[in-house]
């Protein structure tokens, strides 16, 4: 049963990065869109993520619940040592969610829109940055459970080159996902051309940031090169991802909506998979050398069993209805309904 829980944990993280990521990315794209295009991109964003926005962020909540029910030691340790970045991420989540809805439901369209837009774009950037940073800090090996000084216990675990570079990498990935996703929604040629350029820009940014991550890891003694050398599986996965990225680059202007999205999704999934494979079964790596793994940090006995059943039961309800929701709104979209 523990494996069911682990699979769900991995699955929720993956879906949060993919769906939530595309969602954050839309705000990041908005940030790098010239003023004259902004309104169009905004409308496009709203049409695409409006109906599923709320469902996207549920994956984060599921992840958190799985952590505190199934792996309480992990939840507790990260809450203590990564208190500060977690708070900053929360501020991002609050700002983003509220600004997104407020700007579309405000009955009057006036200067308040400027405020909402500012909060929306800035927090679209802040949230994934800290998400990536927290993820990196958890496996970066700088958490010191025995530290007594403030900086050592609460700051250095996450304020370091490796974590920051993974934060930037995550932002790039989100922008990449959203750009590719939005290409499929473009209303006219000009818009499409614009979005294709953005997609390529973010592909470059992702590759570049990925390089920086490895560099930072080397400098900080985080054993990450194993990901590239030595492990045949991870090397294979990353190679496939690279191929997919190249195909995407070339085919983007012509490829159908489904293909380009599938490729983009595949790239991100592959990166996460390689990371996951490389680190399994560790979740938290501490400087003391005693790592928390999905095995030694799991709750003992019945809680794991009931959690697994609750998750299985839940997915029987959720997956079909979520699928139907996405299907309904995809199906009925037609070019005529595209205003902008």
């Amino acid at each position: 049963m523990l494996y069911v829980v682990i699979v769900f944990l991995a699955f929720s993280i993956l879906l949060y990065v993919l769906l939530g990521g595309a969602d954050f990315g839309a705000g990041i794209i908005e940030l790098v869109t010239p003023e004259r295009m902004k309104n169009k991109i905004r409308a496009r964003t709203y049409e695409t993520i409006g109906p599923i926005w709320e469902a996207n962020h549920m994956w984060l909540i599921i992840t958190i619940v799985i952590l505190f029910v199934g792996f309480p030691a992990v939840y507790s340790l990260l809450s203590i040592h990564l208190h500060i970045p977690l708070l900053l991420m929360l501020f991002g989540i609050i700002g983003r969610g509220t600004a997104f809805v407020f700007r579309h439901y405000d009955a009057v369209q006036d200067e308040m829109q400027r405020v909402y837009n500012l909060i929306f774009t800035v927090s679209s950037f802040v949230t994934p940055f800290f998400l990536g940073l927290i993820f990196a800090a958890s496996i970066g090996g700088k958490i010191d459970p025995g530290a007594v000084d403030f900086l050592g216990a609460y700051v250095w675990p996450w304020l370091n080159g490796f974590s920051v570079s993974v934060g930037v990498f995550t932002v790039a990935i989100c922008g990449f996902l959203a750009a590719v996703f939005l290409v499929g929604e473009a209303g006219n040629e000009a818009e499409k051309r614009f979005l294709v350029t953005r997609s390529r820009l973010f592909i470059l940014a992702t590759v570049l940031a990925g390089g920086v991550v490895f560099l930072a890891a080397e400098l900080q003694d985080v054993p990450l090169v194993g990901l590239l050398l030595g492990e045949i599986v991870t090397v294979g996965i990353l190679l496939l991802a690279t191929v997919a990225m190249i195909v995407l680059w070339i085919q983007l202007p012509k490829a159908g909506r489904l293909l380009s999205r599938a490729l983009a999704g595949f790239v991100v999934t592959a990166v996460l998979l390689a990371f996951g494979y490389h680190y399994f079964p560790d979740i938290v790596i501490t400087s003391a050398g005693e790592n928390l793994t999905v095995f030694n940090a799991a709750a003992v006995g019945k809680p794991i069993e009931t959690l697994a059943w609750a998750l299985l039961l839940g997915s029987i309800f959720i997956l079909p209805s979520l699928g139907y929701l996405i299907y309904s709104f995809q199906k009925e979209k037609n070019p005529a309904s595209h205003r902008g």
Partner: protein
Amino acid sequence: MEDLLAARWQMAVSLGFHIIFACIGMVMPFFMATSHYQYLKTKKPLYKDLTKAWSKGVAIFFVTGAVSGTVLSFELGLLWPKFMLHAGPIFGMPFSLEGTAFFIEAIALGFFLYGWDRFSPWFHWFTGVVVGISGLASGILVVAANAWMNSPAGFDFVDGQYLNVDPIAAMFNDAWFSQALHMTLAAFVSTGFAVAGIHAYMMLKGKNVEFHRMAFVIALLFGGVAAILQPISGDISAKDIAVRQPAKLAAMEAHFETGKSVPLIIGGLPDVKNKKVDYAIEIPGALSFLAHGDFDAEVIGLDQFPEEDHPPVMVTHIAFQIMVGLGMALVGLSLLFFFSRWKKKEWLDARWFLWLFVLGTPLGFIALEAGWTVTEVGRQPWIIYGVLRTEDAVSPIPGIVYSLFLFVGIYVSLAVVVTFLLIRQIKAVPDSLRKASDPKENPFPSNS
């Protein structure tokens, strides 16, 4: 401010903020579904307008509920890591089921908000009902988790170890039913009277009177019935804690000395040092009767507990008086409403009548916050009653007071913005009435 106090305040502020949006999220879908049903049956366009007007408000409240809830699921760890280390696996069952309920709610809301004129009318109506039912389910589940903190069950506590954990038994602890019942009713009372009050005010202003009357009646039908049932459910809760958490009951009643045939104390200021209550009205034997159904029964007082296990008497007592006092006032308003619908139809338009309900707008929510203060402060000094002390659960990180200030700042700004948006939304109602006849009208303004 010391860190423990700051953490307690931060938790209280966050929960006190979330609960308002959670209640609205639980109850408004039922109001919308009722009005939507009326529309489908009678085809009166005003009902459609009402449903839509409400649903825009709900979208704003929903997102605020969702983000504040997300904050809470992190805060449990950020503030109380040592509590979650042990409690997580034990009281996690409701949270894992709640995930499903939230998800269904979010999906159904997607269908409902974006589904006008896209699906068959009854399927569309049904998605609205699903929003309500799953909202209620999540409310009940999370209250079951809170009830576990009051009435720990489903594990053996041996030498500081939590053994033989059974999450199902933990979920169905002794307190879950009474708390869930009382909470559900409270959500209907507080939202019902708040909504009715706002629409009563609009009727007084003479705008779209017919529209606002429909809204007023729907809100009060739900709120009124719940308000009348509330004291009954409150009595069940009181009888329950008299047995389970006698220290909390004693603090609520400022009952210092154990004795038989104990009077009920109404109002008054507890004087904790001298163990007496000043300026109170006493009803002989009534507390014994309310707690145990017998005027002569013994009621345990605070003297049975060591000083360090006493909850803060002043806060608990006053909060309890506020809840019960407002509860009774709301029962009065509800009876007045039902009486006038039955016998005195002309009152429904009278200005004094509408003003009474305008004044009633905040009362339900004040009672709700007061009630939670009773439950949570009355549990102190325990975070898990009788098992783990709050002071032993707090995070070791220093400077929690700064995050408290930040959160208070954020919540105050959010409250201001939400109020501002709501006022704009209400002012915009005549607009939507004019457009109402156009079936293709886009229900959501997009700034394209």
